[in-house]
């Protein structure tokens, strides 16, 4: 008997479009959190459906609708789109605002994340990966998340922001609480701590400008030559903190879990160590199949979309993993084909909010894998797949991933 209070769907949602689905909950028999999404279509959920869970929200299950959710900001806004709704929530710059307002901070950040800018980071990323991996390669085992996948992107963030490496443990701790805690009091205290850290950081860069992202954002000027509001600057720092850490960590966890259990794939990547273009093509397929993010939008006004009545402030989830395995777009979508030729996955989104860090993220994953395979060519899971502790939510992944070699 289900004794959990379940609010009814609102009046504008017809019964046949209601499905009871909680995207934060991963049932015990599911070893891979993305499967909760792929079960939906298999179990007959309509391609556009409504769940009353988590404050109530729509779910899009077709590639075409997910892409429309990204591109059509006249209907689907990023502003205040959190699920479950959190109000007030900081307006993250530029991710939390729609065009044309979005273009202002996007343009400030864009030059620092172009393929050209990321190529200049290559050497430093290789060094960091090599050093981290050689720290445990001789031990024959590690917890991949704690020992590598959480550290690497966080250390990269520190460097981009011109912060000293000694602060890595502090940032790992606050990031871990931010991404994993479900306790409202701990979360509130953590948010205050993050904002205090960012405040200190930008104040310090004001006194002591450096060649880093924090200084660039601080020194940016609007069309009239004035500095941007302090709160926007802090919120831009906050966005870069939340967007580039957990996503990369969990994508890496997925990739390493797959490679630990798939000797053929390890061989294919080892064969491509001296062929970066072929290596990158295979990484692209791992990006398609391991899409960890579920993206939120908020409906801007009462309207009808594909025959479904939407009401102002309705929330919508765009699950990238579902778009990336839509059989009408990807032949044999569940198969991991490291030579897949046409691969228009939406792991980094599409449209004006395309993940600005996508080139850095891909480069971080590619370089990590190259350095890893050079030092640890073969490895396996040191625990049963069934025993992996997994989580759902806006970013899906694993609590830990024990590997041995």
């Amino acid at each position, binding site marked *: 008997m289900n004794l959990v209070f379940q609010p009814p769907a609102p009046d504008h949602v017809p019964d046949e479009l209601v499905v009871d689905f909680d995207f934060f909950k991963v049932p015990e028999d599911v070893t891979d959190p993305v499967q909760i999404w792929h079960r939906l279509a298999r179990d007959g959920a309509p391609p556009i459906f409504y769940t009353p869970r988590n404050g109530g929200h729509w779910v899009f299950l077709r590639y075409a609708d997910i892409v429309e959710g990204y591109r059509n900001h006249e209907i689907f806004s990023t502003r205040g789109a959190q699920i479950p709704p959190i109000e007030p929530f900081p307006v993250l710059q530029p991710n939390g605002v729609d065009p044309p307002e979005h273009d202002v901070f996007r343009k400030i950040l864009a030059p620092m994340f*172009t393929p*050209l800018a990321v190529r200049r980071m290559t050497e430093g990323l290789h060094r960091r990966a090599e050093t981290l991996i050689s720290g445990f390669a001789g031990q024959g085992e590690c917890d991949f998340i704690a020992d590598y996948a959480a550290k690497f992107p966080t250390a990269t963030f520190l460097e981009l922001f011109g912060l000293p490496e000694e602060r890595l443990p502090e940032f790992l701790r606050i990031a871990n609480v931010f991404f994993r805690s479900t306790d409202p009091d701990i979360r509130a205290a953590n948010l205050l701590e993050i904002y205090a850290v960012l405040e200190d950081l930008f104040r310090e860069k004001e006194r002591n400008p450096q060649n880093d992202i924090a200084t660039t954002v601080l020194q940016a000027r609007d069309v009239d030559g004035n500095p941007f509001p302090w709160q926007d600057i802090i919120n831009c720092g906050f966005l870069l903190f939340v967007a580039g850490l957990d996503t990369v960590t969990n994508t890496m966890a997925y990739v390493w879990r797959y490679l630990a259990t798939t000797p053929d794939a390890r061989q294919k990547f080892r064969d491509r160590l001296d062929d970066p273009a072929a290596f990158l093509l295979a990484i692209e397929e791992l990006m398609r199949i391991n899409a960890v993010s579920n993206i939120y939008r908020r409906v801007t006004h009462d309207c009808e979309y594909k025959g479904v009545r939407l009401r102002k402030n309705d929330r919508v989830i765009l699950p990238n993993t579902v778009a990336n395995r839509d059989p009408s777009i990807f032949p044999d979508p569940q198969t991991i084909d490291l030579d897949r030729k046409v691969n*228009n996955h939406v792991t980094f989104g599409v449209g004006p909010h395309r993940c600005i860090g996508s080139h850095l993220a891909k480069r971080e994953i590619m370089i990590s894998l190259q350095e890893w395979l050079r030092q640890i060519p073969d490895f396996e899971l040191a625990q049963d797949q069934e025993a992996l502790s997994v989580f759902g939510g806006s970013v899906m992944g694993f609590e830990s991933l024990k590997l041995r070699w």
Partner: protein
Amino acid sequence: MRVVANLKICQGHARCEDLCPEVFSTDAVEGKVVIEHPEFPPELEEKVRLAVRNCPEGALRIAKGDKA
């Protein structure tokens, strides 16, 4: 053969540059596509077509004849 880009649609995924760097690069300001060699030689046709098909925004197309 000639390849053209719609810069209003391009969002800087840079898949074209990854797949066919002989013809495509990206700019240093917004990271949008720069077509270095719009009129590409026939031996690159397959790579260019693949780049066009892999644009997640559909911002690239191959123009027929000489006209863009």
